[in-house]
């Protein structure tokens, strides 16, 4: 089972995850990033890289995030790969504070 990006990414999109991903499995839209489950190798590098802890190992996550497994798979399939780190969204600093990080 792969890793997934959850709701904390929304309005942040820091993309530190993208830079440490060894296999370029991150895709993105205007709002957040998503992990392609067929490409992710479960190395876990992205988990500590995320400033708002949006990323989980699906084998080890709170029940509430289960719907994100399908969301990541569906969205990643239709969006372009992010190969390099991007500037965070303008709302990122406020959102990070709001999330308590």
């Amino acid at each position, binding site marked *: 089972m792969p890793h997934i990006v959850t709701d904390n990414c929304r309005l942040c999109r820091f993309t*530190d995850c993208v*830079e*440490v*991903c*060894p*296999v*370029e499995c991150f895709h993105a839209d205007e709002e957040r990033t998503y992990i392609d489950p067929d490409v992710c*190798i*479960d*190395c*876990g*590098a*992205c*988990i*500590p*890289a995320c400033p708002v*802890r949006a990323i989980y*190992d699906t*084998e*080890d996550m709170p029940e509430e995030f289960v719907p994100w497994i399908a969301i990541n798979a569906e969205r990643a399939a239709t969006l372009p790969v992010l*190969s*390099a780190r991007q500037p965070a969204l303008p709302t990122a600093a406020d959102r990070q504070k709001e999330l*308590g*990080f």
Partner: protein
Amino acid sequence: MNTPDKALKIAVIGSGPSGFYAAEALLRAGLPLQVDMLERLPTPFGLVRSGVAPDHPKLKEVIKVYDRIARSPGFRFLGNVALGRDVTVAELRAHYHAIILACGAQSDRCMGIPGEDLPGSHTATEFVGWFNGHPDYRDHAFDLGREVAVIVGQGNVAADVCRILAKPVDELRTTDISEHALDALAQSRIREIHIIGRRGPAQARFTPRELRELGEIHQCATLADNRDLRLGERCETELNDLQNGNAAKNCALFREFTANQAGNRRRQIRFHFYLSPSEVLGDSRVEGLRVARNRLEGPAFAQVASATGETTTLNCDLLFRSIGYRGVPIPGLPFDDHRGIVPNAVGRVTDGDHTVPGVYVTGWLKRGPSGVIGTNRADSVETVTHVLADLTQADAVEKPGGDALEALFPARGTRNLSYEEWLQIDEAEIERGRPHGKPREKFTRVRDMLALTGHG
């Protein structure tokens, strides 16, 4: 090679993750550029081939990414070429505009205690290299004929060593573990594996995924002591920090292990904390480990182990140490002996207060042995940013590059292998593994690899 003469010529030394991510970042820069990757073995991929455990095949899928980089225009593999043996740093600096050292941390930290070198006391590197078929460790022998093993260290390499010792051998038969290791493990009589750490469960370095696996091994009881999980206030502060998620998950797993019973399982793994080895005991071979009990001192996130004065002895037959890794000094370049790295400022190699022009470092040799495979991607992006900034500001000088370097090899008896020749080895290994249901059976001797590619 039809490299235009104005191309920037860059040598990357080492073909593990940090080397390949450096090559990737260079090749994506959109500049006329040639990357030559030197590797001391005939085979590429560094620790992905010889470090990642055989029962973690998914992690090895990262090789597909490296294969894509290796097939890019502007990339050349120079296998079986060792820095120091076949070429010198001075020669590389003369042939290339820049050299990037990506040689990793190839040796283990010592415990620095009496008896450390007794027969039966090994480094994790030796054992991991041995079961993964690394030519350097092919002829090492591990006596698995007795019952108790101790592993010193609580990181992911310690977890790999433990898992390979604890797993039923039948579960390894269809992995790419080397045949000689499989044969030895099939005869193993190991029953108890003790993993000791000098600090507490909140400071263990495992990633939770690796730790969880140790609790899920068939016919193996994984145990921890309730008393070790009574954490002080400063440890609780560490666990409550949102950015320290691994520690909280690890402690939850250790708590689960305290409820397990040894029962009549074939094997057991037992975690021990707050213990520092002080002496390996035994006359002609390892018979035990004397350990000193510690308590934690200092503020949260900077707690250190401090001896209480109490000592105890763990009887054991086999000892592995996995307490950190060090780079190996490169002749002709500065070395930070304390940290076991090449001294650098964000990747630029430094000698005292000045930088060494044209020489860079990335990966474990740059920052020390921390992080996972992907950590090296960001690290190499950082180094390459500085390489390119320096090169594009420098006056254009032509460098002879890899063709001229290769021309030096025949007189030295150096037989360099191309990426196409590695692909021949790759195909032959996959073929050798097929009858046994294995993804590959690695060649473990350099001479066999050379013979296969017509260099015998």
